[in-house]
C-alpha cells in the first residue's frame, strides 16, 4: 500500500510540481496517475522511491514513512520501470534482470532461477535470449525485459512510468494484456504513470487524474468515465467516454438472454410467431444444437415457401460476437448490420443471447454499476 499524505514538491523557484497530493494506492491494485504533461504525475511517482525529495507532507509505504529508509535500500525494495527502459547495454539480458537481486546479495543459483522464471513470465525465452545483449533485441522485447527487471527481486511495490510508451500501438496492446495477466499472478501494488486515457482505463483499477500538481478526481475507470467531476475531467476523458465505458463492459455481463430465434426446421408459422412475440423485424436461425446458422427477415418469410428458403446463411463469426468480447465490439457489429440485436455466441458457436442498442444505452446511463473488475475484460 502506498499513501500520499498532503505531499508537496516545491522547487527553489517557487514552482509547485505536486501540490498537496493525498492518495492511497491499495494493496494489489494498479493505481494509474494520469494528466496532461507537467501535471506532476512523474514527479509524484519519483518521490515514492526518493529519486525526488518531498518538500512537505509524507509518503507511507505499507504504513511506514519512506524517508525512514536509506534511499538505496528503499529503491531495492521497489520495482522501477521507465519508458526509456534503461537496460544497461554492456550487460546481458540475464545480468540486467539480475541487477537488483545482485545488489541484495542473493546467491547466484537463486538469482539464476529467478531470472529465468521472470524472463519466461514476460515471454522472453531465456535459453535463446538470456545471453544476448539489449541491442540485439527489438523494442518490444526490451520493454518486456524492463518489466522482468523491475520484478527482479520480487518487490511488493512497483513504479512504472509509461513502461509501454516506446513501442508501436499493436505491440503496446499485447504488452498491456500480458502485463495484466502477470499482475493477476503476482498481485503487486503498482503506481502506473501514463498520459494515454485508453491505457489508463484498460490497465487501472483506479485512476488518479492530476492537473497542475493537484488531484482532480480519483475513481475507478468506470466511475471516472460515467461521472467526470468537472469540465477538465470531462474534456480529458474525451467526448467518446461512453464508448470507452462500453469497452469496460463485457458482452456476457450486458447481453439479454432472450432474443428472437428459431430452429432451422421450424415451420413458417412458428417463425412468424417468434417474430411477433419479440416485436422484431428479423430472427436468428439455429440448428438443433443451438448453433447459429444465419437469420431470417420478416419480409422474406412472407414471400417464401419454407424457412430454409427464406433464411440467409452466414458464418457465425461475421455476424455475431463471442461472449468474452466487449460491449463496444458488440456495438460495432450492431452498426455494421441491420439487426436490432447483435447475437452473442459461446466458444462452440451456440447462440447464448444478444445485445441491443437499447440495452447499451441503459448500461452507459447508469453510473457505477459495471465497475466489475477486470474479470470481465478480455
Amino acid at each position, binding site marked *: 500500500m502506498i499513501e500520499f499524505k498532503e505531499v508537496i514538491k516545491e522547487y527553489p523557484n517557487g514552482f509547485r510540481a505536486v501540490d498537496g497530493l493525498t492518495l492511497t494506492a491499495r494493496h494489489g491494485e494498479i493505481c494509474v496517475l494520469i494528466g496532461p504533461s507537467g501535471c506532476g504525475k512523474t514527479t509524484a511517482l519519483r518521490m515514492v*522511491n526518493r*529519486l525526488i525529495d518531498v518538500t512537505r507532507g509524507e509518503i507511507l509505504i505499507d504504513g511506514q514513512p519512506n524517508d525512514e529508509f536509506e*534511499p*538505496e*535500500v*528503499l*529503491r*531495492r*525494495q521497489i520495482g*522501477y520501470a*521507465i*519508458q*526509456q*527502459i*534503461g*537496460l*544497461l*547495454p*554492456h*550487460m*546481458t539480458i540475464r545480468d540486467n534482470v539480475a*541487477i*537488483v537481486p545482485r*545488489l541484495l546479495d542473493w546467491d547466484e543459483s537463486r538469482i539464476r532461477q529467478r531470472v529465468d522464471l521472470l524472463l519466461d513470465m514476460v515471454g522472453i525465452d531465456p*535459453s*535463446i535470449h538470456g*545471453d*544476448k*545483449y*539489449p*541491442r*540485439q533485441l527489438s523494442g518490444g522485447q526490451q520493454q518486456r525485459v524492463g518489466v522482468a*527487471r523491475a520484478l*527482479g527481486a520480487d518487490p511488493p511495490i512497483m*513504479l512504472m512510468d509509461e513502461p509501454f510508451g516506446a513501442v508501436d500501438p499493436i505491440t503496446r496492446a499485447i504488452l498491456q494484456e500480458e502485463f495484466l495477466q502477470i499482475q493477476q499472478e503476482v498481485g503487486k501494488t503498482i503506481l502506473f504513470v501514463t498520459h494515454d486515457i485508453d491505457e489508463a482505463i484498460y490497465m487501472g483499477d483506479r485512476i488518479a487524474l492530476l492537473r497542475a500538481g493537484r488531484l482532480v478526481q480519483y475513481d475507478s475507470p468506470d466511475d471516472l468515465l460515467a461521472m467526470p467531476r468537472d469540465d477538465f475531467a470531462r474534456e480529458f476523458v474525451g467526448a467518446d467516454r461512453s464508448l470507452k465505458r462500453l469497452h469496460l463492459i463485457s458482452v456476457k455481463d450486458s447481453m439479454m438472454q432472450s432474443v428472437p430465434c428459431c430452429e432451422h426446421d421450424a415451420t413458417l408459422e412458428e417463425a412468424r410467431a417468434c417474430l411477433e412475440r419479440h416485436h422484431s423485424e428479423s430472427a436468428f436461425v439455429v440448428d438443433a444444437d443451438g448453433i447459429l446458422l444465419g437469420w431470417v427477415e420478416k419480409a422474406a418469410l412472407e414471400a417464401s415457401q419454407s424457412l430454409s428458403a427464406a433464411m440467409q446463411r452466414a458464418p457465425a463469426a461475421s455476424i455475431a460476437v463471442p461472449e468474452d468480447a466487449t460491449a463496444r465490439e458488440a456495438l460495432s457489429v450492431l452498426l455494421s448490420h441491420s439487426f436490432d440485436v447483435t447475437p452473442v455466441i459461446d466458444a462452440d458457436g451456440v447462440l447464448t443471447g444478444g445485445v441491443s442498442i437499447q440495452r447499451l444505452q441503459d448500461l452507459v446511463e447508469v453510473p457505477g454499476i459495471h465497475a466489475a473488475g477486470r474479470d470481465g475484460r478480455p
Partner: protein
Amino acid sequence: MKDTKAKSAENGAGRHLPFAALIWLLVTAALVVIGSQTVTLQDREKFVGDFDFTVEKVEGENRLILHLTAGTFEYGVTPEVILPVPSGRYRRGDADAPQVALALFDALDSISEVTLEPQTITARYEDAAADAERVRSRLRRPFNNAVANDRGSITAEAAGETIIFQTSDERFLYAQYQPALVPTVEEYDSRAAAEAGSPLARYIVSESRAAQTLRLEPARLLIGYAEGTALEPFARTMREILNDFHPRASLAPNLWLLTAQLEIIPPLLAIGVEPLQTGLPLFLFTLLMVLVEGGIFLLASDGKKHLLILLTHIASVFLLFWSIFGHEPLWDAILHAIFPTSAQLAHPQGTVIDFTAQHLELVLTSSLYIISFGLFLGIMVTRENFREFLPLVNNLVNSGQTVPTLAIVAIMAPIIGLGFMPALVALIAYGLLPVVRNTIAGIESVSVSIVDSARGMGMTSRQILLRTELPIASRIIMAGIRTSMVINIGTATLGAFVGSGGLGIPIASGLSMTVDAFILLGAIPAALLAILADYVLGQLEVALTPRGLLIET
C-alpha cells in the same frame, strides 16, 4: 544456440591473432638468422660494442688482429655493490678516490678537485674558458652513470668554475665497479708483462698458452702468438675465450630497470627473473608465446580469455620490437644502406635501445600521470557535486594543449631546472586534454535514462560510476588515452632540448652536428614506437570494450 551477430562480435578481434603471431614468429626467425651471436644492450656493464670479431693476419709477423665488427670498446665493469658516497675531498690522482670522483675526473680533464658530501657533490674545474653550461652537459651522463640513485632526483647546477650535483634523496649512492676492460690503449710485449696487466690482458694469457704479445685498443685487439701455432684454431680459441670473458648481455636491462622504477614488477627482480636474451632465446620465447596464445585460442572463446590472448600477444609483439630496437647490427646495416658515405653511424651517447628506454620511461611515466589525473578530473567534474568545475577544468586542459610544448618546457626549465622533470611536466600538461575530454564525453554519452534506471533500482553513486558509467564510457575513454599516448611519443622527442634524454637526443645532435644518420637513429624508432603504441592500444581498446557495446544497432 547463439546469434551469429553475437558470435562475430565475440571473435572479431581474435580471429586474426594466429596470423599476426605467425608473422612475428617469421620475423624473429629472420632475426636469429641475421645475427644470433651478437649481444648488445650492455648499459649496466658500460660495454658498447659487439662480441663478434673479424680476424686479420699481419703479413710477415706472428700476429693476428681481432676487429670488432661494430661499435667501440669503452670499458667493461661489473657492478658489485651499492654503497653510500663517502664524504671527503679528493684531488686528481688521489689513490683512494672513490668511483664517483674517478668518473668525474675521467670525464673532464680540467677537473682538479671533487668534494663529496651526503647530498651534494661539488666538482671544481680549472678552465676559465669553458662554458659552464657545456661543462654541465659534458658531466651529466658520466655522473649519472657513476651514481646509483634515481637520476630523476638529481639536479646539476653550474656556477662559474664549480658544478654542483644535488640529490633529493637522503644521500648519494654509488655502485662500486670492478674494472674489466680498459678504455685506453694498452701494450704488453711479453707474457710476463701481460700477466701483471689489466684484467683483460691477464685473462687472455691465462686462457691461451700461445698468446705472446698484446696490444689492446678500443676497437681492436692485436695478439702476437708463438712460432708454429696454427692460425685458424688459434683465432677460433681467441674468439671463444673473449666471448666467455664478457658477461652475457641481456635483452633489456633498461626495460627491467624502467619497470622497477615504475614499481610495477620489482618483485620479479627481487626473485631474480632474468631478462631475456636476443637471438635464439627470444625466438624460443616468442614461439612459447605463440603456443600459449594458440592454446588459449583453441581452448576458450570466453570474453575474459580473449583478453588474456590479447595480453600475451601484446607482450610478444612488444618484446619483438624491443629486440629489433636492441639489434645494433641491424641499425648499422639500415643506416649504412641509406648513408653509405657517412663516417658516423653509431651515436656516441648511447645505442638505440638506450634512447628508447629513456624515451619510454618519459612517455610511460607521463602517461601514468596523465591517465590518473585525466580520469580523476574527468570523473570528478561529471559528479553532481563538482559539476560547476566543468568549464574551469575544460579551459585548463584546453590551454595546456594550446601553449606549445616547447614553450612549456622553456617556462619550466628555469623553475624546475633541466632534465627529466620539466619534460615530464610539459608532457603531462600537453597530454591531459584528450584523456580529460574523452572521459567527460564518455561519461556524458551514457544516456540519462540509463543512469536514472540504475539509480531507481537502488545502485549507489559509486556503483553507478563503476558498473554503469565507466563500462559504457570505456571505449571513448580508451580512445582518449590512445590519442594522448601516441601524441606523447612524438612530443617526448622535444624533451631532449632540456636534457631529459630519449629519442630526441640523436635527433637534436643530428640536427646540430648535421649528421643525417643520427636524425634517423632517433626518428625511425620514434615513428615505430608510435605505430606500435597505436596498434597495441587499439587492440586493448577493443578488448576492454564490453561486448554488448560492440554490437551494431
